[in-house]
């Protein structure tokens, strides 16, 4: 599932909802705003295209890996240091597919999603 939002999200809540009887592993990646002597980070996004590209990426991950659920959340707008930017969470029966799918998804997101970060100093 893909979620594009201006609002903050709870990684804990996403992970908790992925706990199901058939699931043995949940792997997540949380990207946050790092303090590189910046005041804020502005995230710009071509939303319709980002959703479409991320959906394709999710479908490709499902073909490659044996996973249960996939959740990709990406924020846009003006963010402060320490704020959540992106969450990738993957559940599967066994850990290897969850780890591999999670890495595949975040690497793919950086390459294909039309998103631009601007550091405000």
């Amino acid at each position, binding site marked *: 599932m893909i979620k594009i939002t201006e609002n903050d999200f709870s990684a804990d809540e996403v992970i908790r909802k992925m706990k199901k009887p058939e699931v043995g592993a949940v792997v997540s990646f949380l990207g946050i705003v790092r303090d590189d002597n910046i005041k804020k980070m502005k995230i710009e996004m071509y939303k319709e295209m980002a959703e479409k590209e991320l959906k394709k990426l999710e479908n490709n991950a499902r073909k490659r890996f044996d996973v249960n659920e996939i959740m990709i959340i990406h924020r846009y707008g003006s963010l402060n240091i320490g704020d959540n930017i992106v969450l990738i969470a993957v559940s599967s029966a066994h850990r290897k597919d969850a780890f591999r799918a999670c890495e595949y998804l975040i690497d793919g997101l950086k*390459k294909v999603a039309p*998103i631009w970060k*601007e550091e405000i100093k």
Partner: protein
Amino acid sequence: MKITVKFFAGHRDAVGKEKIKMNVKKDAIINDVMNSLIKRYPALEQLKDYTIASLNHSYAKLNEKLKEGDELAFFPPVGGG
């Protein structure tokens, strides 16, 4: 044919607008639009080598043909996450 062109990040700054409507000739390709935009907005010229195009929300090559109602977009290399 009428099309919409959107700009993001540095390309939006160069044009000064988020989107414009354009009339293009039948059988026009994306590169034709890019060239006519450079004439209208000379600041785009220096971004040309860093320009990525999308057509109707999918990545597109500069030689792709346009049709009535298309949504074209120009932007620099992406990098979210």
